[in-house]
């Protein structure tokens, strides 16, 4: 479909990917787009590989699942192996540099970014890795505007954690921008 | 075979074990063993891996093995 982005966010159960998907979707709504968000759970959504998917489009969205991602995020090894498959040619793929060692063969443009490390070292909470990732993803793809994603984020996070989250998002934006400017992680 | 054991091993004060072995494939990094080791033997390492940081301090009390919910710790007793 024209003007449609299929986004797949994946990682382990506790990494907050559904929340990231929701924020991304809400940012797209602020931008005036149509959007559908879905997820898939493991046996009890603990550990392992889980995913959240977002489709963003100017058109009405019929089929709600992502078949062939335009954008892929993989925050742990298992989810990359399980869910990266099927990316479109030249899709954008972002993986956690610290937690992912192997990448399946793909024609995607792959960026390995220190997402979790940034969250742990620069924000002090690994928990916000999802937000860092969201920043990086927005910056690299331009799929949602910086303002919208910031607004959407701040609406969703618990009171008292706004600053921490804003910081995580900024760090993510920076990671993304640096990556855009710098070296691409190479095709393989 | 429990049936050949007269007294339960875990209830007998043990010899100083040769090693505390962590099965990293099963460990879920919950931190219980670290919190309950009174001797500071265990610690989180890189990427929250549980490491036997101070093996020499271990007194073989077995608390870590006892409380590990994932059977990821073994006290391997030295052959006598």
């Amino acid at each position, binding site marked *: 479909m024209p003007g449609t982005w299929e986004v797949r966010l994946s990682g382990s159960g506790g990494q907050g990917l559904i929340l990231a998907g929701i924020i991304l979707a809400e940012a797209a709504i602020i931008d005036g787009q149509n959007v559908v968000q879905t997820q898939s759970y493991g046996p009890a959504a603990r550990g392992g590989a889980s995913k959240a998917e977002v489709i963003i489009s100017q058109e009405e969205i019929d089929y709600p699942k992502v078949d062939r991602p335009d954008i892929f995020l993989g925050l742990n090894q298992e989810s990359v192996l399980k869910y990266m498959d099927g990316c479109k040619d030249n899709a954008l793929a972002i993986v956690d540099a610290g937690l992912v060692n192997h990448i399946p063969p793909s024609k995607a443009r792959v960026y390995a970014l220190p997402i979790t490390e940034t969250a742990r070292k620069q924000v002090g909470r690994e928990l916000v890795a999802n937000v860092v990732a969201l920043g990086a993803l927005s910056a690299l793809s331009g799929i949602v505007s910086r303002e919208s994603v910031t607004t959407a984020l701040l609406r969703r996070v618990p009171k008292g954690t706004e600053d921490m989250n804003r910081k995580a998002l900024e760090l993510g934006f920076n990671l993304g921008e640096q990556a855009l400017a710098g070296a691409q992680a190479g095709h393989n | 075979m429990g049936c050949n054991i007269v007294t339960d091993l875990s209830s007998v004060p043990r010899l100083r074990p040769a090693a505390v072995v962590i099965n990293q494939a099963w460990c879920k990094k919950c931190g219980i063993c670290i*919190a309950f080791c009174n001797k500071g033997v265990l610690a989180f390492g890189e990427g929250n891996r549980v490491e036997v940081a101070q093996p020499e301090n271990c007194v073989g009390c077995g608390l870590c093995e006892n409380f590990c919910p994932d059977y990821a710790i*073994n006290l391997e007793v030295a052959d006598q």
Partner: protein
Amino acid sequence: MLPEIEQYFRLEKLPHMWCPGCGNGIVLHCLVKAIDKLCLDQDRTVMVSGIGCAARASGYLDFDTLHTTHGRALAFATGVKFAKPELNVFVLTGDGDCTAIGGNHFIHAARRNINLTTIVFNNNIYGMTGGQYSPMTPNACRATTSPYGNLERPFNLAELAIAAGATFVGRATTYHTKQLTDLIIEGYKNNGFSLIEVVTHCPTSFGRHNKMGSPADMLKWQRDHGVTAMRYENLSPEERSDKFIVGVLHRCEAPEYTAEYQKLQEKFRGR
């Protein structure tokens, strides 16, 4: 894990699916230690469970194992035990499984005094479905369906079991592993319905909503709040208010159901 008890696990199924730090693994550990000490025949021992996180336990144990429907473990187990009384039958069930949807089967199994050793994994919450309050959730606690704090009072499960007719009732925690192992042994030895309530910790669905800290913190809470009957006796009412007793709570004699039926059969067979 002690090498001599590995035989009771389906090792290829490990690590189990429970969350990091979940107490269920500790309960299972104590169960197999007890079975080992009891020298039970692994081929003639059956584990029956319902549905829930705790109920997944049956899948990790190397016996004939029966993972049933939510709340019905005791009813299925009644069928197994009554049909073949020579089998050792353990029932592994969560607090929701046993006391919410399964409450009726619980009181009736106790009333019949059928020889089932029932281990209730009491984590005070519906863990599997993501943290709704259970009939064992303390008053005022938070859960996803009690966002303003739980209005209900929990059961005193031990008292309920005693009133219903259980002939052995004990309570331990995942901290009190030695006691738990011993209670399971004693419960098994009782020729009748035995309840062993294990206070276990669910860091994911209960701990998080109620600011209980890390899994280790939750274990420490158990250590600090579970006391022996003797110690309990000597506490002041204020001190008692947040404590619970760990150990054997009740023991009595009564005819066991399957044995009674066997007598009947002997009497009327061929008539």
